[in-house]
């Protein structure tokens, strides 16, 4: 909301600096978005009167004017504008004047003739966006007066953001109330004076309220024989300062009174109302109205209209109807001032996406007791500016009286909540200054009656906030509380997940952070299995490709790989939730998943590495295993057939048949399609499942004091034999003597038959009881060899 300081001072004449006022408003809870001083830069621009206009002898498009500025000789000024005539008053910048933007005016020759100044357009003075020609001033503008005074530019405009609870602040009177309470200066309301004629409004019109829950109060006045005209300068300027465009005196007055009081009014052309009467009712299903913005709107039975005897003439509290609009031919006016139920206004305004000024005021809660003052204020202005006869009486229907609330304050509760003793009298005085009154009171507490405009106050805490606000948040001390816990634990995974994150970072991976939206089409294109396609769907997504919540982190990793395809190493991970709808629950499961992607060179291009090894499957498997081992998670790996993966390089990790995650090479076909490196390896782990697995116990194992002995063995086995089977076959061999088996080489190639591979194993023998003899070790080796021969038809090399 834009607030003019000059205008505000009409209601509460405080004398503080702009900075102090801005600071004060801020500390009272009025957020200042900006402060502008429109006339700040303008100097030496006065009201001038054009005495003479002659063509410029050397230039078709220029004229030579004589302009009187009320002092000294009239100035000769060369001008390019065409919209002025002799006798017009215009803003005139003299030699040495400064215009907005620091633009300096000096006397100079234009096409051979000297110009002693400049006559200004509205745009040049920044009072209009665009101008065609000079700004022609009102004929009454005093000659020689500083233009800043005349145009109201000697002003400060505050842009203020008003919180939704304080609808009462959204007006000049509302702001003045707050500041008058703070500065302890009385508020001055404008005088209302107008004369009524004998004939009563009720003799020619009526108001009927069919829906008192939606419209507790509706008041109207009839004013006849008004003269529609443009508004005078003072009124137009005020609307402009609020960012509004003047239309005509009647409409402008209703808008002005809205700015002044916060109470929306509406003027109907009385003669366009069928039977000249008002019916406040709910719309009929399918009923239509063309609103002032030209839209034809179809209504339903939950929406309130202001109708005449036959049809809707306004969307109540939101926008008037085009059919009963006040225009240049209007003679008789029906003026409306009402109190509408905030919720009903809000619903209808949202339904039609029509959050007008009026709707905003009503939905925050207008002041039901302002209804008659506002209508009389507008009536008074109408009679002053548009003439007209005011018919006697207000048609004031108030079927559902809105009672003032009362709220109790216990003085000692203020200290309990705020943490500092605030004087009882101070507490009481503040609340009274804000317009509350006392219903009952004693030493310890007081029962306040809440003013009709304070819809936000209904609890003791609301009063305490008022006290704290006026006391000053800055004067409340800063103390540190004793922090205690009940013993309940709300999250066990946060730290462990963070440990995994740290581990991966230490392994050289970089963490990504993606939006958790996903594109369902991409999921299908990538050939994700069916269970990934059951997704949480957004009703109002930003776009189609962000219309679901992700069920996997893999697409995000792939997108990141695509984005960074020019990097020769990509080793990234992301930890975050995926969203899995369930049959039985309203909310989806949100397991935390870890996605890892390796692509490109495994080592950097650095002097000490001879070649640039490309990442392979085992780089990624190693990282995944390190995580699981770090957490002491028991697991098995098996081949898997995840469709995004290379069928020959794909595995899953399980614990007791529960799948913990997958590791694989990106299917080269997909890599091609996405135009990313073919050597791309991806893993996705379900961290929730992993953290649910009971970790292996950490138990001390005796360190033998006897020496250990190693033996190496190379065997030839079928190429397709998984090495893990060799290991598991040797589990029970050696009776505690076989301490460790190392797999130190696996070879396929020219040296061995094409369907075979050579596997080199290192065995370490050691006993806790004695030094092992060669004989003992030989016999275990024999057992190992025979086991391998028997089970795998292994050849010893």
């Amino acid at each position, binding site marked *: 909301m834009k607030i003019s300081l000059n205008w505000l001072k009409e209601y509460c004449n405080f004398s503080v600096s702009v900075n102090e006022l801005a600071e004060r408003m801020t500390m009272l809870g009025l957020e200042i978005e900006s402060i502008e001083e429109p006339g700040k830069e303008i100097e030496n621009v006065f009201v001038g009167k054009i005495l003479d206009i002659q063509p410029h002898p050397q230039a078709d498009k220029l004229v030579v004017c004589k302009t009187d500025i009320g002092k000294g000789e009239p100035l000769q000024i060369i001008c390019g504008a065409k919209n002025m005539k002799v006798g017009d008053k215009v803003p005139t910048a003299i030699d040495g004047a400064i215009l907005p933007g620091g633009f300096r005016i000096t006397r100079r020759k234009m096409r051979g003739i000297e110009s002693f100044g400049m006559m200004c357009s509205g745009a040049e003075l920044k009072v209009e966006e665009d101008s065609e020609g000079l700004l022609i001033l009102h004929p009454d503008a005093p000659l020689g007066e500083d233009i800043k005074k005349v145009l109201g530019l000697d002003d400060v405009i505050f842009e203020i953001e008003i919180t*939704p609870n304080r609808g009462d602040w959204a007006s000049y009177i509302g702001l003045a109330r707050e500041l008058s309470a703070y500065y302890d200066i009385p508020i001055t309301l404008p005088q209302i004076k107008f004369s009524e004629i004998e004939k009563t409004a009720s003799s020619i019109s009526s108001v009927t309220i069919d829906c008192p829950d939606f419209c507790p109060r509706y008041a109207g006045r009839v004013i006849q024989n008004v003269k529609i005209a443009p508004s005078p300068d003072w009124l137009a300027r005020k609307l402009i300062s609020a960012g509004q465009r003047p239309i005509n005196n009647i409409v402008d007055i209703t808008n002005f009174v809205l700015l002044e009081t916060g109470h929306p009014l509406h003027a109907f052309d009385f003669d366009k109302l069928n039977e000249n009467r008002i019916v406040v009712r709910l719309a009929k299903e399918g009923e239509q109205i063309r609103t002032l913005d030209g839209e034809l709107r179809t209504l339903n039975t939950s929406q309130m209209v202001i109708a005449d005897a036959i049809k809707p003439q306004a969307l109540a509290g939101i926008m008037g109807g085009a059919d009963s609009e006040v225009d240049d031919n209007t003679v008789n006016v029906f003026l409306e001032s009402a109190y509408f139920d905030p919720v009903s206004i809000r619903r209808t305004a949202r339904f039609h996406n029509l959050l007008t000024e009026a709707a905003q005021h009503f939905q925050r809660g207008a002041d039901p007791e302002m209804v008659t003052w506002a209508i009389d204020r507008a009536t008074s202005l109408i009679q002053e500016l548009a003439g007209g006869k005011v018919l006697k009486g207000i048609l004031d229907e108030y079927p559902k009286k809105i009672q003032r609330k009362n709220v109790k304050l216990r003085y000692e509760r203020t200290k309990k909540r*705020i943490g500092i003793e605030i004087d009882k009298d101070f507490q009481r005085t503040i609340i009274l200054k804000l317009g509350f009154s006392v219903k009952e009171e004693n030493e310890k507490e007081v029962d306040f009656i809440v003013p009709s405009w304070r819809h936000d106050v209904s609890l003791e805490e609301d009063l305490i906030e008022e006290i704290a606000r006026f006391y000053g948040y800055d004067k409340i001390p800063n103390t540190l509380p004793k922090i*205690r816990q009940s013993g*309940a634990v709300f999250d066990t995974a946060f730290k462990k997940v963070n440990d995994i994150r740290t581990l991966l*970072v230490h392994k050289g991976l970089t963490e990504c*952070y993606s939006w958790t939206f996903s594109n369902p089409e991409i999921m299908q294109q990538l050939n994700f299995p069916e269970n990934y396609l059951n997704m949480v769907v957004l009703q109002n997504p930003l776009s189609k490709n962000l219309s679901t919540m992700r069920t996997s982190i893999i697409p995000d990793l792939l997108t990141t790989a695509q984005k960074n395809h020019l990097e020769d190493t990509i080793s990234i991970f992301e930890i975050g939730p995926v969203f899995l709808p369930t049959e039985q629950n309203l909310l989806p499961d949100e397991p935390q998943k870890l996605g890892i992607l390796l692509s490109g060179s495994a080592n950097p291009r650095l002097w000490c590495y001879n070649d640039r090894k490309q990442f392979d499957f085992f780089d990624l498997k190693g990282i995944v295993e390190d995580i699981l081992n770090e957490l002491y998670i028991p697991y098995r790996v098996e081949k898997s057939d995840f469709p995004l993966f290379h069928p020959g390089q794909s595995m899953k990790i399980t614990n007791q048949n529960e799948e913990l995650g997958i590791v694989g090479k990106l299917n080269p076909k997909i890599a091609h399609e996405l135009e990313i490196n073919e050597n791309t390896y991806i893993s996705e782990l379900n961290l929730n499942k992993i953290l649910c697995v009971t970790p292996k116990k950490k138990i001390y194992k005796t360190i033998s004091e006897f020496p250990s002995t190693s033996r190496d063995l190379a065997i030839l086995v079928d190429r397709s034999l998984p090495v893990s089977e060799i290991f598991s076959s040797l589990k029970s061999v050696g009776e505690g003597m076989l301490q460790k088996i190392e797999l130190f080489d696996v070879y396929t190639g020219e040296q061995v038959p094409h369907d075979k591979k050579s596997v080199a194993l290192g065995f370490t023998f050691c006993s806790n009881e004695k030094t092992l003899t060669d004989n003992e070790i030989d016999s275990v080796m024999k057992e190992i060899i025979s086991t391998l021969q028997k089970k795998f038809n292994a050849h010893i090399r």
Partner: protein
Amino acid sequence: MIKDLEQIKEFALQKIKEAESTDILEQIRVEFLGKKGKITEVLKKLGSLLPEERPKVGSIANEIKEIITNNIQKQYQIVLEKELQKKIEKEQIDITLPGRTYGNGHMHVINQVMNEITGIFIQMGFQVATGPEVETEYYNFESLNTPEDHPARDVHDTFYIKPGVVLRTHTSPVQMRVMEKTKPPVAVIVPGRVYRVDNDASHSPMFNQMEGLLVDEDVTFADLKGTLMYFVHKFFGEDTAVRFRPHYFPFTEPSAEMDISCTVCKGKGCRVCKHSGWLEILGCGMVHPKVFQYAGYDNEKYQGYAFGFGIDRMAMLKFAIPSINLLFDNNLKFLEQF
């Protein structure tokens, strides 16, 4: 024979003197003292001597052996010293060459900041709580005193999933979930993703918040101010100014917004702070009685404070990141800066 031995000795000592490497000295040792060495060879002939001459020759031989051994040792020290010196000279490297590494990884800047912030609060005695991102309207709005037709819902442009289910617009619903699970005292912080229908240069439809909730018997507004002041001083530095302004949130009363002195201009006024010298970073207040009512807490017995702020904004301020969209764009050139 003694003569032979003397000759061998002279010969050996000469050779030792001339030896320039430890290898040569080792050869000399073998040549003269080894199993097949010259002295041994001489001593093998000891048998041919008269028995009474044997001890004398034997002792002379041993004496010579000892002299040769000592000389070898002495020369060995000298030669070794020279050799090591040479080796050291040869092994000069350019220590300015980069170290052998695969490079460090980078934790995402949001999580770095999240960890720093949670660390500060955990150290004060808070614990971390988390909650679902797809949330019911009940937890996200209603139980936080924001019924369906409340104008405060306008500032939360909400993503809807189905009737009664939304993407949470703030981390505040976790307050209610925590309070439902336990009686006071409660002291939690809640980091997490939140969502609003908003996407431009300064807004991301997904962003991160941190919520704080403290409920006990005597928690005051002064405690709220003190806690947040402590946090700001730890996170932004002791010289950061802090101010609290009255504000409005449906779920706190009294409510406040907290500003810190602009991290760019230190309060002098610049473009970042819209020339005010202040940056708004946080909303807070005393937990609203209606919220306690939903939680089943006795408003007369308990009171508490709550606060919430944007983690992304903290990160942006701390590292002078100009646009929130950089945070979620996953450009490695950005991620690797932190």
